[in-house]
């Protein structure tokens, strides 16, 4: 370690880094493989769950969040929550007004029977 007491720095062991990398590769193969299985609308949620698992691995180990000051985690998770809020409310609204659209006024949006 450094000569000036850098004991606050956490060095991630190489074993952990390699392990995370291999897990990410495996999960990528799993997510590609999962598209051959028909699970209906659950496919999307499975893919998102795997992506979130991969993202968590990257954030926790590659980005050191597990060893970091917890306030950084609050910043990161806070940003994610606000994205979800934005997407959630926009989605809720656009879903709700689709049936009210009048084809011809906005042809791309109403869809014709």
């Amino acid at each position, binding site marked *: 370690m450094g000569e000036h007491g850098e004991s606050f720095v956490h060095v991630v062991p190489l074993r952990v880094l390699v392990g995370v990398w291999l897990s990410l590769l495996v999960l990528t193969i799993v997510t590609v493989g999962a598209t051959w299985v028909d699970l209906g609308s659950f496919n999307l949620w499975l893919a998102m769950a795997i992506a979130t698992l991969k993202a968590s691995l990257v954030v926790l180990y590659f980005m050191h969040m597990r060893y970091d000051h917890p306030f950084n985690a609050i910043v990161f998770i806070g940003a994610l929550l*606000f994205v979800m*809020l934005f997407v959630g*409310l926009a989605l809720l*609204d656009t879903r*709700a*007004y689709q049936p009210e659209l009048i084809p011809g006024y*906005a042809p791309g*949006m109403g869809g014709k029977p």
Partner: protein
Amino acid sequence: MTWFKMPLFLWGLYGTAIIQILATPVLGITLLLLIAERTLGVGIFDPALGGDPVLFQHFFWFYSHPAVYIMILPAMGVISELVSAFSHRHIFGYRFIAMSSIAIAVISFLVWGHHMFVSGQSNLASLIFSVLTFLVAIPSAVKVFNWVATMYKGEVELATPMVYALSFLFLFGIGGLTGLFLGALATDVHLTDTYFVVAHFHYTMFGGTAIAFFGGLFYWWPKMFGRMYNETWARIGAFLVFIGFNTTFLAQFIMGAHGMPRRYYNYLPEFAPYHKVSTIGAFILAIGFVIAAGTLLHSLVAGAPAPANPWGAATLEWQTTSPPPHENFHTQPVPGDPYDVDRWVFDPSAGGYVLAPAAAAGGQA
């Protein structure tokens, strides 16, 4: 310095910073999409290409509603300083005012759809956003009541910054309460795109932010430039601003409720008297601002030297000379309660406030 030794102005700025970090990137992507729309024709928001124009409004207002809180939160912080300093009383409900800034910052992200009640937004979303909009009234009211409670039984000194602070309370009160009319779904349909909206916006943004800005300017002017301004003329300016502002925009509430649409250069003859009153008010307002600006500029050349603490405020900046030296303090100050104004007593020989002998002897506990 710890979180709860910070002046409330800083808490206001902290809330502002949260909004800026979380909202501004969405404006960034909105602008990028618009640029792509105009230059490449991606059609994300263009119905001719299958895009959804209401989605654009979601993008726009997700930034632009929190943006008005970017403007008002620092103003509320300034008012917290002024009310305590000129009532010569400890601020009432420090933690509530601090936390209400954060609450406003967070809730400001939940209400953007109230700009879209007549945009084609679904009834469901309108309902949700309307309910959430009323939530903003809670932290705003927490602040207003705490300011009023601070003044209660205080020695209210009507110096120029306090005149602006009282104007703020009155004008922001009207601005905030008329916001409830606009947040209610049924009345909003009637009032959308009328002068009522214009008046509401100006009562909050002008009566709120701009008035607080002037209050803060007159409050910190001696600290910034080391000169006292002419109190009489400064008060006349503040008074004219208050009169002119109300003349200009109160008339707009009435004609808006009667159906005068905004963004029209022409109107029915029945609206003419209101427009005339409004125009006269605008001139009074302009005269008030010219007097205010003239007073400040005059002080730069002919003002008396400012004492370290002309108002008796207890935040750290008043413990150094006016204007502050390079790096602000010769010795590092010990931060204490920023609103412990009782430790400061008026000293006629200094022309301002100094630490009370007991407090000075006892150190800054």
